């Protein structure tokens, strides 16, 4: 079943065709990797789907409903959440509050200003549960600004997961961390995504990570989709190898 479908989605930045007539489909329940060189249009595509950017033409259909002109807020309510390549956290709030705020927001409780947030046990408990799954429970009372880079990347994803999305867009969840940290971070993220049956689109540069964790791979090149297939199909796709992977994956 198709969860998300884009039709001839197009976004220009001046003369640059950042996303150029892209037909992109995400199936319910899959873990899809979106790869491509810098400037291929991956982040722009995610920005269009999440509502951060408006397309110049084309449409986005999520769960059968056209969301092309819907606000960010409307898309979040529909179940589209995202994380960011450059970590976007609430640095002066505690790690726990970063997640608790999201739960308050999801439940419509942020409108409420007559009770103390810290006294909401169910929300705190849920936030602690989320942190536990991301291995951040020991940092709950630290300010988010004081976390190490790897932890910040995880918390960025945790914040998106706490929205209980149907579709989770992760923009380079392991960028900026050491190679040694990448696998543990991806292990945690993919385990959560699988166990909660969240459909995920992950932008990633590291080919080892991509081949290891994804069900399907979509390769972008200069604003268009170059290839689309299983990791094995992509690994052996000559066109992909010449334009993108080079000798790295063949060896």
């Amino acid at each position, binding site marked *: 079943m198709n969860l998300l479908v884009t039709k001839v989605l197009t976004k220009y930045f001046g003369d640059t065709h950042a996303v150029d007539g892209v037909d992109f489909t995400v199936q319910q329940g899959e873990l899809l990797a979106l790869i491509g060189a810098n400037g291929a249009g991956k982040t722009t595509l995610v920005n269009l789907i*999440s509502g*951060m950017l408006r397309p110049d033409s084309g449409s986005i259909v999520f769960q059968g409903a056209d969301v092309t002109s819907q606000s*960010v*807020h409307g898309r*979040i*309510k529909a179940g589209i*959440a*995202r994380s*960011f390549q450059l970590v*976007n*956290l*609430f*640095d*002066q*709030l505690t790690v726990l*509050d970063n997640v*608790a*705020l*999201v739960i*308050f*927001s*999801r439940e419509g*409780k*942020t*409108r*409420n*200003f*007559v*009770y*103390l*947030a*810290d006294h*909401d046990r169910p929300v705190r408990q849920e936030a602690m549960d989320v942190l536990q799954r991301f291995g951040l429970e020991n940092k709950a009372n630290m300010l988010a600004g004081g976390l190490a880079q790897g932890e910040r990347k995880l918390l960025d994803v945790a*914040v*998106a997961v*706490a*929205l209980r999305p149907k579709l989770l867009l992760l923009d380079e969840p392991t960028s900026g961390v050491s190679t040694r940290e990448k696998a543990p971070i991806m292990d945690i993220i993919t385990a959560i995504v699988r166990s909660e049956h969240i459909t995920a689109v992950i932008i990633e540069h590291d080919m080892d990570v991509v081949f290891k964790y994804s069900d399907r791979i979509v390769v972008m090149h200069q604003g268009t989709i170059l290839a689309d297939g299983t990791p094995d199909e992509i690994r052996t796709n000559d066109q992909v190898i010449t334009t993108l992977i080079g000798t790295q994956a063949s060896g």
Partner: protein
Amino acid sequence: MTMVTVLSRRLLLSAAVILALLVILPSALDPYQTILLSYGLIFAIAALGFNLLLGYTGLLSFGHSAYFGMGAYAVAFIVKYLKITSMEVFLIGGILASAAVAALFGFLCVRYTRIFFGILTLALSQVLWSLAFKFFWVTGGTDGLRVPTPSLLGMQMAPGQDKMTFLAHRYYYYVLIIFLAGLAVMWVIVHSPFGKALQAIRDNETRAEFVGVQVRKYRFVAFLISGAYTGLAGALWVPLNGLTTPEILHWTFSGKIVFFTVLGGFQTFVGPIIGAVVYNYLETYAVGHTVYWQLVLGIVLVVLVLALPAGIVGTAKRLGLRLRRAA
């Protein structure tokens, strides 16, 4: 956990001591000192409201004189046109009028952030100032409007009672109670889920939007509450001052409210309160001692800001933390 309990116990204890002092002071001080403290507490209410925007939402308003002035002028108009002198009516009128202006100005201003927000708030407040200045047949122009001693909870000042005594006792306690109520309400607001959402907006507007917080709407509500608080302060101020003039609508008064808050420490809850009370004493004594009071005040303030960049309360907190670590 025990550290937190010890800390909050210590906090409660010091709060109780300060409260006791505030209650006893009028019997120990001469009326002039008590009235001075009343001014400080009133400015503290304005600063508390202002800091909901600066410290908690990340918006620096340079136009809060508009709401303070609107609160004060609303009271003066109630006296002039409705011939009512009930303090409760004053407060309701002051809050409603300033909230109405805050709704209008806020609607325009929350579309912008940073310097654009600051300049727009300043410009709009100057519009009110010029209205008060020019429409003298309504506002009294630079002469301002007089406001007599009000009745408190329906009780008039006893006939023959000295106005100073009234202001230094009954009115002081009235101000104190409203200050404490305003303090409690603001404390709950900033610790509520709504308050957390504001802090999220302050820290990261983009992410706040992407976790479902409607940033502009929340900024607007914060602006409204902030304006109403500052308007409440204006309504309390005018019977104490006996007169309202366009001066309190001028942007220099907005600057003072900014200063209270930065002086005390905008990253703390109580900072703006301490800042307002301290500034009020500083200015009063500087004015009393020299004609060059602005120069004296300026130098004192520059030194304070350079020496205490986190504000009085922020610096005290850091020192406290360092001492505890050393111990």
